[in-house]
C-alpha cells in the first residue's frame, strides 16, 4: 500500500518516529527513528572525571538514578570492593525505588490507556477499562499518583530529590541513615507494599510470586479485580501474545549488588535455549544507519567516538547507534532480566510464546512485586553506625565500565580518563538496544523486528501503539 510515517509517539519518554511500509494490511518493513540528539558524549569530553556525576543523570529524567549509578560504577573502576555494605544497600534502595516507579508509571500512565481508546468501544470490557485507565482522566490516577509520590520518600531520604541526585558517589552514598530514619524508610515501604497488595495485585506479593505458569496466571486473574488482573484478562481476547513477538538473544547485566560480585538479579545472556555468561567485551556499536559519524563503526564503546558529521548520510535514519553483542541483535528489559534470573512464571511464559506484548508487560509487573519485597529486605540490612561511604582515590588515567540494569534494561557507561579529564565517554542505554536502527550487516533492531509482520490497516492502528509501548521506550536515553 504505502510508506507511512508515524509520530510523535506520546506516552513514551522522549520523541519517537516510525517509518512503516504497509502492504495488504501488513507491516512489511519498519524503520525506527530517534529524531533527537543532545550530544552528551561530546559534552563530557574534557570534563573532570567526577563531574560526570552531574551531567550523566541528566541524560534521562525517568531513569536518572540508573544513569548516576552506571556513572559511579564506572568511576569506581576496580575499587568497588571498597564500597561499604551500607553504601551498596543505599544504592540498591534508590535504584529499586526508581525501577518500580518507572514500571508502575509505564503500566498506569503509558501502556494501559491505549485500551481506553475508541477502537475498543464495542468490547464488553471497554467501559470498565476506560473508567479505570483513560489517559489523563482514569480513576486509577487517584491511586497511582499519590502512591508514587509516597514512595519517593525513600529517594528523598536517601538521595535528596528525584530526578537528578548527586548522592550516588564512587565509594557509596552521600547520605548515611541512622536507626530512626531506618524506621521511617521501613514504614514508607510497607505503605507502598499495601498499595500494591490492595490496588495493583489484589493479593499478597508472596501469592503473586507463587504463580508459576501461564495457566495459573490466567486462572488467577479470573477471580481478581485488581489492575494487574484487569490487564491479564485482556490478553487472550486481544491476542496480545501474538502481538510484537520476537525471539532474540536476551541480555541482562545483573542488578542490585549484594556484595562486590553478587547481584540479586543475575547477569547473563539467553541464547539458543541456554543461559550463557555475559562477555561485555563483545559489545560493538554500529553507525552505518545512524546520522552520527561513521568513522568508528563496529568498535567497542571504549574505541568508539561520537561526532556529528558535516552532512547527514541519506541512508541513515536515526540518531541512535546500533549496539550488538557478539554481532547479535539483543532484547533487554524486565522480560530479559526475569528469563535470565529464571523467575518461574516468566520462564514458563518465555517457553510458551517468547517475547511479546503481553509477556513484556507481565515481566515488568512481576518484577515490581519482587523489588518491593527486596526493598523491605534491604532496609533491614542497614548496619546503622557503620560507614555509608569510603573515599576512593581516582587514578589520573584509567579506562573503565559501569554496567547496571535500569528499569528498561541494560545500561552501560564506558569512560576513559586521561590526566584526570574525561577523554572518551560512551553510553549504551536500554532503548539503544531495543530501538536501534539496522547495524552494518543490515540486521534490524528489536522493535523493527517486532513490528514487521503485524497486521495493521494503517499507521494509526492501536496495535502499533501496543507493540511500541510494550517495550517501555525511553527515547531521551536512546540517542542521548
Amino acid at each position, binding site marked *: 500500500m504505502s510508506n507511512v510515517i508515524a509520530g510523535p509517539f506520546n506516552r513514551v519518554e522522549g520523541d519517537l518516529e516510525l517509518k512503516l511500509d504497509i502492504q495488504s494490511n501488513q507491516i512489511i518493513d519498519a524503520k525506527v527513528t530517534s529524531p533527537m540528539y*543532545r550530544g552528551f558524549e*561530546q559534552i563530557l569530553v574534557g570534563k573532570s572525571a567526577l563531574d560526570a556525576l552531574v551531567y550523566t543523570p541528566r541524560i*534521562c529524567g525517568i531513569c536518572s538514578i540508573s544513569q548516576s549509578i552506571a556513572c559511579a560504577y564506572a568511576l569506581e573502576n576496580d575499587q568497588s570492593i571498597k564500597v561499604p555494605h551500607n553504601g551498596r544497600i543505599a544504592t540498591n534502595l534508590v535504584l529499586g525505588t526508581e525501577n518500580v516507579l518507572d514500571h508502575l508509571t509505564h503500566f498506569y500512565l503509558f501502556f494501559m490507556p491505549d485500551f481506553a481508546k475508541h477502537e475498543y468501544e464495542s468490547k464488553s470490557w471497554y467501559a470498565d477499562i476506560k473508567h479505570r485507565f483513560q489517559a489523563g482522566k482514569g480513576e486509577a490516577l487517584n491511586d497511582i499518583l499519590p502512591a508514587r509520590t509516597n514512595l519517593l520518600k525513600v529517594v528523598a531520604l536517601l538521595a535528596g530529590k528525584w530526578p537528578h541526585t548527586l548522592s550516588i558517589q564512587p565509594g557509596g552514598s552521600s547520605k548515611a541513615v541512622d536507626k530512626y530514619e531506618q524506621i521511617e524508610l521501613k514504614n514508607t515501604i510497607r505503605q507502598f507494599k499495601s498499595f500494591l497488595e490492595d490496588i495493583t495485585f489484589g493479593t499478597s506479593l508472596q501469592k503473586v510470586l507463587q504463580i508459576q505458569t501461564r495457566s495459573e496466571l490466567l486462572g488467577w486473574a479470573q477471580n481478581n479485580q485488581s489492575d494487574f488482573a484487569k490487564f491479564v484478562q485482556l490478553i487472550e481476547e486481544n491476542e496480545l501474545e501474538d502481538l510484537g513477538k520476537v525471539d532474540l538473544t536476551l541480555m541482562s547485566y545483573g542488578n542490585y549488588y549484594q556484595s562486590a560480585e553478587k547481584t540479586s538479579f543475575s547477569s547473563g545472556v539467553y541464547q539458543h535455549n541456554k543461559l550463557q555468561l555475559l562477555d561485555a567485551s563483545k559489545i560493538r556499536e554500529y553507525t552505518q544507519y545512524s546520522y552520527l559519524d561513521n568513522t568508528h563503526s563496529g568498535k567497542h564503546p571504549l574505541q568508539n567516538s561520537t561526532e556529528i558529521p558535516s552532512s547527514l548520510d541519506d541512508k541513515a535514519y536515526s540518531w541512535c547507534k546500533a549496539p550488538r553483542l557478539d554481532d547479535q541483535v539483543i532484547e533487554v528489559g524486565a522480560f530479559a532480566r526475569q528469563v535470565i534470573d529464571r523467575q518461574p512464571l516468566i520462564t514458563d511464559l518465555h517457553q510458551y510464546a517468547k517475547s511479546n506484548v503481553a509477556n513484556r508487560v507481565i515481566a515488568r509487573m512481576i518484577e515490581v512485586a519482587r523489588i518491593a519485597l527486596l526493598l523491605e529486605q534491604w532496609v533491614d540490612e542497614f548496619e546503622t553506625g557503620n560507614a555509608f561511604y569510603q*573515599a576512593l582515590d581516582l587514578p589520573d588515567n584509567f579506562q573503565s565500565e559501569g554496567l547496571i540494569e535500569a528499569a528498561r534494561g541494560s545500561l552501560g557507561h564506558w569512560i576513559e580518563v586521561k590526566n584526570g579529564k574525561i577523554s572518551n565517554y560512551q553510553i549504551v542505554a536500554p532503548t539503544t538496544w531495543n530501538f536501534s536502527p539496522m547495524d552494518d550487516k543490515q540486521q534490524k533492531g528489536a522493535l523493527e523486528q517486532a513490528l514487521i509482520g503485524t497486521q495493521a490497516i494503517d499507521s494509526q492502528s492501536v496495535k502499533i501503539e501496543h507493540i511500541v509501548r510494550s517495550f517501555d521506550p525511553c527515547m531521551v536515553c536512546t540517542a542521548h
Partner: protein
Amino acid sequence: MLNLLWLQSGGCGGCTMSLLSASDPHLMKQLSNNNINLLWHPSISEESSAQAIQILNDILDDKIKLDILCLEGSLLRGPNKTGLCHMMAGTSTPFIDWIQKLANKSDYTLAVGSCAAYGGITAAGGNPTDACGLQYEGHMVGGLLSEKYRSKKNLPVVNISGCPTHPDWVLITLSMIANDQLSIEDLDEYLRPKFFTQHLVHHGCDRNEYYEFKASASKPTDLGCMMENMGCLGTQAQADCNIRPWPGGGSCTSGGFACINCTAPDFEEPKQTFMKTPKIAGIPVGLPLDMPKAWFIALTTLAKSATPKRLRDSATSDTISNIGNKLDKESKDV
C-alpha cells in the same frame, strides 16, 4: 477553561517526571482545580501521531485557542542552523520551526526547566547541538525567540528554571496565570517567578548551624556545612528548595550533596569542578550574595574560634553528636 499545550525538545523529561510527583492534590486535580485543560502533553495525553499533529495544526489555524504554551527542554538549532538535531517526529519539520510558530499563538509562554529557559545542561561543554533557551542563551538575552518576543498577554517568556523544576514552581505559576495574577512585576531579573527565586537555597538548610560556626564537611556523608569544601552554592542559589521540600520531603543539601545552583543561567558550566570549592589563599571564591568579603573573613575567623565541640565533631562525621549530653559536657568544660 484555559488550554495548555506542553511540548518537549532538547531535555531529559525530568521536569515532567517531577511534575507528576505533585501532591495534595495530585497533578491532574491541581490542573482541574485551576480550570486548566491539558490540550496535549507528551507523557499524559491519549492522542498520538496524526491526532497530536492535528491539535498543533488546529492551534496554528486558530481553531483552538492556546492560552498557555509550556516548553520543556532546550532548543536544538544545530547542526549548522538546520535544526536537524531534533526533527519533530511525524512532521519532517525541525522542532524549532514548530515552537516559533506556536509561540506566536500563546497568551503565555513558559519555559519549564533551565534547558528551556537558558539552554541548560544540553548547552554545556562545546554545545554540540547549538542548544539555547526560548529567549535566553545562558545569561544573555536572545535565544531562539528574539529579545523583543512577547506572548499575546504582552509578557516575555516566563522562565521557570531548575534542573529539574519543583512541581510547585510550575503549578503555582500556572495558578497565578489562571487567576490572572501574573505580571512582569512577578518576575526577577532573569524572568523567573520571584515567589521561588526571592529565597536562597541556604534559607532553611538544615546545616545552617554548621554554617554559622563554619563547621565544614570534608567528604560525602559528613554532616557539616558544604560551602567551604564541597562546592555548595546554596548561599548564592536563588530557590526555595529548603523551605519547600521536594516530593517525598528532601532537598539536595539534606541528601548530603552540594547545591549546584541549577536555577541559574549557565549553571552547567561553573568554570570549576562542581563538588569542590575553589579557594584563593584558603578563602572560598564565591561568597554569599551581597556579603562584603572582609566581613565574611572576619566572621569566619570568629565563628571558627567559637565552634562548639558538638558541631566540630558532627561536621566531619555521618552521625549527629548527641545534643543533650554534649551540651552538658560543654557547660562543664566552661
